[in-house]
């Protein structure tokens, strides 16, 4: 062919690997890309077994792939998404990729020489860029998922995610007939505090107290910011008595140590309403929130800085508020 003058130099400059083996898997050809990446010379490896030269290729798998190419005389493929690489090679982003190995898209083609001898050509495309983008996408998605359920100020769960978890835990408790309790608490006189120390002062109290409270909870409890200065805690596998205990400890942890903000020492307290799940049905979690809210209201009315449990006598009032 008259155009032969350029095929060879182009093949040598190609930014993809080209490798040819005969039916016995003996190397017939490697282009420059592969010779450089694998630090081998064609003269040294020509005629040697592919599996000897590249000792870590998945031999059984590759034999089977090549067999299908030879027998069916049709191409076969391998994607980095399922198998990161066929031949373990370094790539050209040693500083900017998390994996030291080249991600590869491979094509295996049937190739017959002029004498009719059957060969297989392995084309290796460097897919490291796609691999890096994919990894970045994954980590961004993870961060997004995290920020989608966390309250930015207090690092508690945000209301939407917290309510979802409450709903799930209520269903779980009903299914396995385990006790479940809910605490709703509110920072006492938060408005005054904001007025006196400014919003930054109020914020720093919210941040410090949420951290203090989080440290007192179990991994299985769900701590969320319900509204401005109102928070909720789902206590799994906990009956009313245990929940009251926890609530008392939280009250004490808040009132016993002041929050330091600039030169001020800010004394604060919380009021806590406690309710144990005691009804069935699909809206049970809403009823539970209503009950804890009634108890919280009573804690406020009774003088703040205290824990009040919901008692069944208040159901009538509750029904009025949830309707």
């Amino acid at each position, binding site marked *: 062919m008259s155009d032969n003058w350029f095929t060879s130099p182009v093949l040598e400059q190609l930014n993809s690997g080209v490798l040819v083996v005969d039916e016995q898997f003996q190397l017939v050809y490697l282009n420059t890309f592969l010779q450089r990446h694998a630090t081998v010379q064609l003269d040294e490896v020509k005629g040697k077994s592919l599996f000897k030269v590249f000792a870590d290729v998945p031999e059984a798998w590759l034999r089977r*792939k090549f067999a299908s190419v030879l*027998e*069916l005389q*049709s*191409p076969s493929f391998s994607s980095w998404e*399922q*198998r990161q690489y066929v031949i373990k090679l370094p790539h050209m982003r040693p500083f900017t990729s998390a994996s030291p190995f080249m991600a590869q898209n491979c094509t295996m083609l049937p190739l017959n020489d002029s004498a009719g001898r059957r060969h297989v050509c392995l084309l290796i495309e460097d897919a490291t860029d796609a691999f890096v983008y994919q990894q970045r996408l994954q980590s961004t998605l993870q961060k997004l998922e995290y920020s989608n359920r966390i309250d930015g100020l207090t690092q508690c769960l945000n209301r939407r995610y917290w309510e979802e978890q409450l709903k799930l835990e209520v269903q779980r408790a009903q299914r396995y007939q385990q006790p479940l309790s809910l605490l709703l608490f509110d920072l006492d006189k938060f408005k005054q505090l904001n007025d006196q120390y400014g919003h930054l002062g109020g914020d720093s109290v919210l941040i410090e107290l949420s951290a203090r409270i989080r440290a007192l909870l179990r991994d299985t409890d769900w701590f969320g910011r319900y509204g401005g200065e109102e928070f909720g805690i789902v206590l799994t596998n906990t009956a009313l008595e245990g929940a009251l205990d926890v609530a008392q400890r939280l009250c004490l942890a808040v009132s016993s140590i002041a929050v330091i903000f600039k030169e001020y020492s800010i004394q604060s307290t919380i009021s806590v309403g406690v309710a144990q799940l005691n009804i069935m049905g699909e809206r049970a979690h809403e009823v539970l929130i209503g009950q804890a809210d009634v108890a919280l209201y009573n804690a406020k009315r009774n003088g703040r800085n205290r824990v009040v449990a919901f008692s069944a006598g208040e159901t009538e009032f509750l029904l009025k508020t949830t309707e």
Partner: protein
Amino acid sequence: MRRVFSEEQLDCLQELINVAMGLASNKLARFLSTFVYLQVPSIALVSSAQVSPQFDNQYSGVDSALVSQGFLGNDGLTGEAIVLYQLDNAHRIATLLGYETDSASELEMLTDISSILTTTFLNSLAEQIDNSLSYSAPRVLSSRQENVAEALLDTVCHWDLALKVDISYQLIDHSFNCDMLLLIPGEAVLTIQQILVRILEEC
């Protein structure tokens, strides 16, 4: 369909596809050392809206996967082959391909078998019409998806007209089956028509 193809052309196309199918299944059976059972492929001209309802019954409520592979030949012959699997079947593929179970992922095996089914059939077809094809790498479009019909609807873009060939593969010894959907878009259908005209003239 008669608006595009004459009855004679249609018969000719069906015959070409049947022969390709026979050749492909023969190759496959030898390669996989198993009996491959094929139904006579059905051909239809469809719009994209008609593609997915057909799979609704068969694949509703089961875990399934879609693998797509594009092909391109001379004279503008082009299209896409989509292979549909029930994932219950997937673990049987490993033994079929002779893989050690842990050496390849399920998806890798699915793309392998898709590629084998698609390329053996299309190569046989191309041979008969003096064409030759190149292929894109097979891509997993979706997997572990409850509703394949929906996934297909999401995936198959909207065109007015396409030639659709349905092929159902059954490997009896392995109780493995899958469906191949060959879609050839509007303009390439005209290429096929010209090919049919040429073949019929030569007869």
